[in-house]
C-alpha cells in the first residue's frame, strides 16, 4: 500500500505554513525515493495544531502530527512517521485529540477528514444520503422534515429554516432561486470558509435539497472576495458535481433540475445582509431593501428566493439523512441541533468547536479555549461578530443559546467568540464598533450613516476626558437613536458592542487625566 499523507490546504493552515510543509515533505519523499500520495484535506479546525499532518497507516488508522514546521520534516521521516512512528510532534489518532474528541460533529463530520474534491471520499463518508432521500420525497415533506428538525438560520438572525422554505414552496412563480450567503464578514468567524474549503459537496448537497424542496432550479453562492481559496474550491466542486449528475437537468437521475453558480463579492460588509446581497447579485449597489416584500416572496430579480447561510444549508444533508428527530435531539430550549462555535482572538486553543447548544460561555472560553494566549486574565469576550455584545466574566454562566444570549442583551450571531485579555481598552473597542459602522454603512439611513460618525467623535472626546458625563449621555442617546431608527442590523445592532462595553466596563469610560501627567 502506498502511504497516504494528509496536508491541509485550508487557508488557516496555509497561513501557518502548510504549503512550505507540503513542499518539504515532497522534497523529502523525492530525496529518499519513497512513493506516497499527498492529499490536501481541509482543516479539522484545531488551529493551535496547524499545520497538522496526518498519515493513513495500515495498522493504526490515521496518525496526526502537529504543529509541523518545515524544519521538522526530516526528523519526521527519520522517526518513521509514515507508519505512525513517535516524534515530538506526534499527536496520535486525530479523533482522540481532546479538542476534537469532545465535539459533536454533524455538519463538520467530514471537514478535515476527506479530500474536499473527491466525490468518492464524500460518499464513503456518508455524503449524498440526504439528497438521495430527498429526491424520493414530496417537496412539502422535505420542508416538514427541515422544520421539525428545529434548524434555525446560522447566519445570525436565527430564523427557522423550514418556515422560510415553506413560504418559497407556497409562492408560485416561473422561476425561484436558492441563494447561499457566504459573505461571512463577522470578525471571529470562519466556519463558512472552513466548510467551503474542506467539504464543499455538503453545501452543494444542501442547496440541491433546498432547490428540490421549494421548486427552485437555480442557486447562487455569494462568497466574499476575501476568501479566494474558498472561491477556487467551490468553483471546482460545482464543476465536479455537475459532471457527476448531482447538478443539472436531472439531479441524481430524478426529474428535478437544479444548477448553481459561484459569485464573488466586492468587499462590502453590508452585502452579508440578505437584501443587500440580493441587490449586489443583481449588479446594483449593495443597499439594504425595506421589508416587506420578503425575499421569500420577491427576492432575486423579483422572484421567490430562499436565502440561507452556508452552515444552515450545510446542516440540511445530515437532517435529511438521519431524520429530524436525530438532529433535534441535540441542543436546548428552542436552539436545536449543533452549532460550530468559532473560538478566536487572544485564546490559547483557537479553533472551530462543533457542539450541541447549551454549553456555557465560561466552559467555551476557559475549558475549551484554555484562557488567553498571552496567559493574562480574560477581560472580555465579544460574541457574534462586530455587532455582538462584549461579555464580562460575570456573565460567563450564560448558556450558548439564542434566547439566553438575547436575555443578556447579546446575540449569538454566526457563533464567533473573540477573546480579549486584561490589556484591552473597552473604550477603544466601543470606538471601533462605531468606526466600523461608519465605514461599512450602506448609507440609506441617517442614524447609521451619520450617527456612527458622531459616535466616533463623541468617544474620542471621552478618551480625552472632555466633559465625560456629557459624552456618556450623548453616546447613550445616539445608541438609542441608532437602535430604533435603522433599517438593518448594521446600524441597529452597533449599539450592542458599544453599550455592553460601557455598561460592563464603566471604569474604561472614565479615563483619569492622571495618565497625561505621568507622560
Amino acid at each position, binding site marked *: 500500500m502506498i502511504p497516504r499523507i494528509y496536508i491541509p490546504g485550508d487557508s488557516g493552515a496555509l497561513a501557518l505554513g502548510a504549503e512550505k510543509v507540503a513542499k518539504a515533505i515532497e522534497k523529502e519523499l523525492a530525496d529518499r525515493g519513497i512513493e506516497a500520495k499527498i492529499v490536501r484535506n481541509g482543516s479539522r479546525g484545531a*488551529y493551535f495544531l496547524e499545520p497538522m499532518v496526518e498519515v493513513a497507516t495500515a495498522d493504526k488508522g490515521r496518525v496526526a502530527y502537529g504543529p509541523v514546521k518545515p524544519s521538522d520534516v526530516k526528523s519526521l521521516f527519520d522517526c518513521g512517521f509514515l507508519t505512525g512512528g513517535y516524534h515530538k510532534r506526534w499527536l496520535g489518532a486525530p479523533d482522540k485529540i481532546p479538542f476534537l474528541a469532545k465535539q459533536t460533529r454533524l455538519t463538520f463530520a467530514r471537514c478535515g477528514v476527506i479530500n474536499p474534491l473527491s466525490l468518492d471520499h464524500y460518499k464513503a463518508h456518508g455524503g449524498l444520503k440526504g439528497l438521495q432521500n430527498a429526491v424520493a420525497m414530496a417537496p412539502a415533506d422535505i420542508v416538514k422534515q427541515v422544520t421539525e428538525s428545529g434548524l434555525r438560520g446560522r447566519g445570525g438572525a436565527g430564523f427557522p429554516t423550514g418556515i422560510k422554505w415553506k413560504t418559497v414552496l407556497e409562492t408560485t412563480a416561473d422561476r425561484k432561486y436558492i441563494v447561499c450567503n457566504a459573505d461571512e464578514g463577522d470578525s471571529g468567524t470562519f466556519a463558512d*470558509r472552513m466548510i467551503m474549503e474542506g467539504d464543499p459537496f455538503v453545501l452543494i448537497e444542501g442547496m440541491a435539497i433546498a432547490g428540490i424542496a421549494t421548486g427552485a432550479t437555480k442557486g447562487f453562492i455569494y462568497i466574499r*472576495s476575501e476568501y479566494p481559496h474558498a472561491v477556487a474550491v467551490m468553483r471546482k466542486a460545482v464543476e465536479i458535481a455537475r459532471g457527476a449528475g448531482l447538478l443539472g437537468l436531472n439531479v441524481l437521475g430524478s426529474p428535478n433540475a437544479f444548477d448553481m453558480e459561484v459569485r*464573488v463579492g466586492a468587499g462590502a460588509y453590508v452585502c452579508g445582509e440578505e437584501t443587500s446581497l440580493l441587490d449586489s447579485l443583481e449588479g*446594483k*449597489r*449593495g443597499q439594504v431593501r425595506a421589508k416587506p416584500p420578503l425575499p421569500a416572496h420577491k427576492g432575486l430579480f423579483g422572484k421567490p428566493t430562499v436565502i440561507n447561510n452556508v452552515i444552515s444549508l450545510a446542516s440540511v444533508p445530515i437532517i435529511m439523512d438521519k431524520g429530524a428527530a436525530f438532529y433535534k435531539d441535540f441542543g436546548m430550549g428552542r436552539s436545536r441541533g449543533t452549532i460550530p462555535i468559532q473560538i478566536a*482572538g487572544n485564546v490559547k486553543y483557537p479553533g472551530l468547536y462543533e457542539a450541541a447548544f447549551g454549553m456555557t460561555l465560561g466552559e467555551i472560553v476557559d475549558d475549551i479555549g484554555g484562557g488567553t494566549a498571552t496567559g493574562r486574565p480574560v477581560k472580555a469576550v465579544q460574541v457574534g461578530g*462586530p455587532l455582538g455584545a462584549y461579555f464580562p466574566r460575570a456573565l460567563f454562566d450564560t448558556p450558548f443559546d439564542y434566547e439566553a444570549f438575547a436575555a443578556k442583551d447579546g446575540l449569538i450571531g454566526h457563533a464567533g467568540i473573540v477573546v480579549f485579555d486584561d490589556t484591552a481598552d473597552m473604550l477603544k473597542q466601543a470606538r471601533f464598533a462605531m468606526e466600523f459602522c461608519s465605514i461599512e454603512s450602506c448609507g440609506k439611513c441617517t442614524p447609521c450613516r451619520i450617527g456612527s460618525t458622531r459616535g466616533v467623535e463623541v468617544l474620542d472626546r471621552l478618551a480625552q476626558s472632555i466633559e465625560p458625563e456629557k459624552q456618556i449621555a450623548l453616546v447613550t442617546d445616539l445608541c438609542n437613536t441608532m437602535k430604533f431608527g435603522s433599517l438593518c442590523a448594521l446600524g441597529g445592532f452597533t449599539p450592542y458592542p458599544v453599550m455592553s462595553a460601557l455598561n460592563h466596563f464603566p471604569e474604561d469610560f472614565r479615563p483619569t487625566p492622571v495618565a497625561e501627567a505621568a507622560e
Partner: protein
Amino acid sequence: MTMQPASTEIASRTAAIIQELKGLEGPLLPILHGIQEEFGHVPQDALPVIAEALNISRAEVHGVVTFYHDYRSHPAGRHVLKLCQAEACQSMGSDAIAAKLKQLLGIGFHETARDGSVTLEPVYCLGLCACAPSAMLDGEVIGRLNDEKLDEIVAEVRS
C-alpha cells in the same frame, strides 16, 4: 449625449470581457471583477462601454463601482498587502503590527509606496481569526504575524 471618448485600447479589452460575461444573470459585478483583473483597476474609460453594453446609465455604473471597497480607480502597487484590523486581530495586537508596518514601509493605509512596490490596505477579517493577527499579500494568507514575519513581508515586497 456626449461621452468622453474611451481610449480604444481600454474599450476593446473591456468589450471582450463584457462579451464573455454578458450572458450571466446580473453580470455587472463579474464584469467589474474581470476588468479589475485585466487592468489592475477599473479605468474611467471602461465605464461608458459597460453602460452601453448593459443598457444602463453611466451614473449607475459609476455608483456601483464606487460603492464597493474592492474596486480601485487607480492602479495599485506591484504588491497589495491587506492587513486585518478587525476585532480578533485587535485582540492579538494588530494595532501595533499596523503601526510597525506603516513605519517600515513609510506609507499609511490606502497608500502606495513611492517606488510603486506596494499598496497597503486595511481589511476587516480574513477568516483567519484563529491565527491572528493576519494579513494577505497578493492573495497569499499569512497568520500569527510577528516582527520576524513583518521583516519577511517587507523584504518580499521590496525585492
